[in-house]
């Protein structure tokens, strides 16, 4: 199971038009100059999979995620995560699309393969494939050196959650 590609529309720096971000299995390196929009890919992933806080998305509130430039502003911020399912998800489909749309009023709409779901149901579904809010699989820029500073109790809670 892996992320085949991400589709964005109006999300952060990716402009108003629909844009495909190819990923695919194995080791994918994301490269480019400062300010290009590399870390915004990680934001798109955490946003759509419901594993984000506005703080680690570097947004004051959800509407800050909507693309804007020189006064023009997108209608919404929309992200699709296209997953290839090789059995991690207990469903028939080989292709699973998780999507999230945030409207200008800040409301979020989550969908699994086009069907509206509540955020907590999405989280339950993703947990089946071992995608958790704190699975320590998403490491945002500048945070790796803070991990060793965790308290002993915090460390034990991590192991408890994994067990």
């Amino acid at each position, binding site marked *: 199971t892996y992320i085949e590609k991400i589709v964005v529309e109006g999300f952060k720096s990716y402009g108003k038009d629909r844009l495909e971000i190819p990923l695919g299995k*194995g080791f*994918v390196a994301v490269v480019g100059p400062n300010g290009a929009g590399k870390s915004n890919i990680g934001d798109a992933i955490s946003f759509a999979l419901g594993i984000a806080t506005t703080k680690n998305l570097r947004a004051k509130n959800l509407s800050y995620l909507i693309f804007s430039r020189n006064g023009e502003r997108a209608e919404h911020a929309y992200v699709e995560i296209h997953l290839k399912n090789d059995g991690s998800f207990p469903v028939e489909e080989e292709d699973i699309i998780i999507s999230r749309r945030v409207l200008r009023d800040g409301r979020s709409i989550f969908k699994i393969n086009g069907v509206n779901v509540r955020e907590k149901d999405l989280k339950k579904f993703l947990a089946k494939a071992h995608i958790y809010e704190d699975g320590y699989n998403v*490491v945002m820029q500048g945070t790796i050196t803070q991990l060793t500073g965790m308290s002993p109790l915090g460390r034990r809670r991590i192991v408890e959650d994994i067990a």
Partner: protein
Amino acid sequence: KLNAFMDAFNNINKNLKRIYAFLSPGGKAEMELENEHDPFAGGINLRVKPRGKDVKYLESMSGGEKTITALALIFAIQEYKPSPFYYFDEVDAHLDEANARKVGELIRSKSRDTQFIVVTLKEVLASYADKLIGVTARGGVSKVFTVNNLSEIILEEAKSA
């Protein structure tokens, strides 16, 4: 519940010892229960000893040493309970070239059955990847494309400078 915890603890610990020894040759790292008789009455300590150095105050470690320790822990957890994908954003910011290579090697070996999406500014790390995704900003809008070799993106970086 205690059994589930001890199973996770012992396995992750075993992984951590091996992975840290690979990333930091001659070094040792392991987890330790504060309260061996009642694990839930205490926390988990991390004892780290880079080659030739004392186990001491974790915060006195260097930026690179903290990064290597953190990655070893993440990989140790990954080997016990893998997620389908990992996203690492500039985890190599404080790594010297030798350590960046070790991390690249380790990610590559693990990427056979797990997806690793790694944002990096270091060519040495990107050189271990199966695939390169290039991102540039044109007039405030990000453009994303597949890169066939690193010289393409170096050209892009020079253009935007």
